């Protein structure tokens, strides 16, 4: 390091990517508060200090949409927190609630039937695709690419339509319940999924031509916001952001839940660690999710009529319940679900949401309410990346890095 040239946040020498040199931090840096009421910030504030046009210091200031999820989870029984926790990542509803349901199931000592597990995976992957498309949309508009915004939001509608057909609600599905799922698919559903997959594969080709291979977008993303493998491990960054930096960590791989260990799919990993790599991880994940969906609907077609809710529930079904399950394919809840008691104990639920690993620590004292629900969401773990990825970049790189991290403030603030 010679003279006045210094490197800020430059960690990426070994892979030969260009680092951005800057002058020594001057005393007269310019402090800019971006957010929380700002078109390019989301519900958070990023305090940046700029020296000329170069960010020398960045501070993510989280907490703007804090809603006391953990505390509220302690006062409303065991089944009612499910619709509540969905509100953390509303477009990724099944993924974010499934680990909680699984933790409660562990405490109760029940396990969902095979078909329910496949149905959960079905909705999880639909959610994952929709959430990635949502991320793309926001990313597109951050880079000024309004067409990407509209396209991704429009194509997300296809997946939302599928989720609505399955669960009856577009976003807040409240689909998994302890012991199983609430609804089964109808006979035309697998074909709907297959059509949607074929459509999306065609569209991804158009996305590539218009957005990913667009020289403007490529030059905005390449070598920007590099987070090294070492840094990812040290900071505990999860999800596509970790996989974009060469860390092959995915809960579906490390600790397969539901039926992920019976499905054949790849976990895409890129070594570069820049914004482009993180973007490509998402593209590849959409492709892999579609592979999973194909396998899942094939399985579901072969195994019609299997139970979708655990015996402990279905054995208590009366004639009305059975009729509804037969005719409408709805697994009704029992009145005891409202005042459920869960044996005392502690359980951890892990799951891979679209943004990374979510962890629920659920403790029960044997009562009507959880004693403690601790939630660690992927965005909460990724927020720290701003502090290390932003310095050394231009102010105009801020939206590119923000969008590529796919940070979602309501999920982080809980």
């Amino acid at each position, binding site marked *: 390091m010679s003279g006045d040239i210094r490197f800020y946040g430059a960690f990426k020498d070994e892979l030969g990517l260009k680092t951005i040199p800057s002058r020594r931090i001057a005393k007269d840096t310019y402090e800019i508060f971006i957010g929380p009421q700002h078109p390019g910030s989301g519900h958070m504030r990023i305090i940046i200090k700029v020296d000329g046009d170069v960010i020398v210091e960045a501070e993510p200031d989280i907490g703007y949409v804090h809603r006391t999820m953990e505390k509220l989870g302690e006062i409303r029984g065991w089944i009612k927190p499910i619709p509540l926790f969905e509100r953390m990542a509303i477009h990724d509803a099944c993924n974010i609630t499934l680990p909680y349901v699984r933790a409660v199931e562990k405490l109760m000592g029940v396990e969902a039937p095979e078909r329910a597990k496949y149905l959960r995976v079905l909705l999880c992957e639909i959610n994952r695709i929709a959430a990635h498309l949502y991320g793309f949309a926001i990313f597109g508009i951050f880079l000024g690419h309004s067409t990407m915004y509209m396209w991704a939001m429009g194509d997300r509608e296809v997946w939302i339509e599928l989720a609505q057909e399955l669960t009856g609600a577009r976003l807040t599905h409240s689909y998994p319940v302890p012991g199983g799922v609430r609804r089964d698919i109808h006979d035309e559903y697998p074909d709907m999924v297959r059509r949607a997959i074929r459509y999306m594969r065609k569209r991804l080709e158009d996305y590539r031509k218009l957005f990913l291979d667009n020289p403007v977008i490529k030059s905005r993303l390449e070598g920007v916001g590099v987070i090294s493998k070492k840094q990812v491990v040290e900071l505990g960054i999860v999800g596509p952001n970790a996989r974009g930096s060469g860390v092959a960590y995915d809960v579906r791989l490390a600790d397969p839940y539901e039926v992920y260990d019976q499905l*054949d799919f790849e976990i895409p990993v890129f070594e570069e660690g820049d914004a482009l790599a993180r973007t490509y991880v998402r593209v590849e994940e959409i492709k892999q999710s579609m592979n999973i969906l194909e396998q899942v609907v094939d399985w579901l077609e072969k195994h019609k009529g299997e139970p979708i809710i655990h015996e402990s529930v279905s054995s208590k079904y009366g004639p009305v319940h059975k009729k509804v399950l037969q005719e409408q394919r709805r697994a009704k809840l029992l009145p005891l679900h409202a005042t459920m008691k869960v044996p005392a104990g502690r359980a951890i639920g892990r799951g891979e949401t679209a943004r990374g690993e979510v962890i629920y620590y659920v403790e029960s004292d044997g009562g009507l309410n959880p004693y403690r629900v601790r939630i660690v969401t992927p965005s909460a773990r990724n927020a720290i990346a701003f502090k290390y990825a932003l310095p050394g970049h231009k102010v105009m790189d801020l939206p590119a890095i923000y969008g590529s991290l796919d940070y979602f403030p309501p999920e982080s603030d809980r």
Partner: protein
Amino acid sequence: MAPKPAVKTLPRRGSLIDGVKGNLQALIVGLKYFLDPKRFTLVYPKEYSKLPKGYRGFIILNKQKCISCAACARICPSAAMKMIRIPVKDPKTGKTRMKQYPVINYQRCIFCGYCVDVCPTEALYHVPYHDVVYENLSEMFWDLETFQKEPEYKTAKEGSPVKFLIHEEYGLIKVPAEEGG
């Protein structure tokens, strides 16, 4: 049959020729959609989307089936549903006694459908629409009478119903649906 990690390589920015090619490619795709947009916009007041049968819309009470078990009020995550006590005349004995019935506050309801799923007699059911307009907030408190009749689907009167089907080429396509909410 198990997930496996796969390290992939990133397409890199190439020479000037690649740049020109990328620009042309993007412009051609843009022009393609300019000529044939493949829209599936719902032109809202002219058309409205007829939602499928299982849609979790407004919740309506069938009073005849209600057995006053209060399971719906107990499971409601947002405390939108409450039980009220009203005097009911017993047809056999002719005596008046107090019976419980649910009422709902649609300011709070989050349409999770737990109450419908928990109802042991299927007395509660969803209607497949949710865009009902209220002139003031107090109208959103439904008393027992309102709770029993399906709300008027006013937007339906202005347009024609369509439903969306998933299509390989267009993503979603609109097809006309039958009348009715």
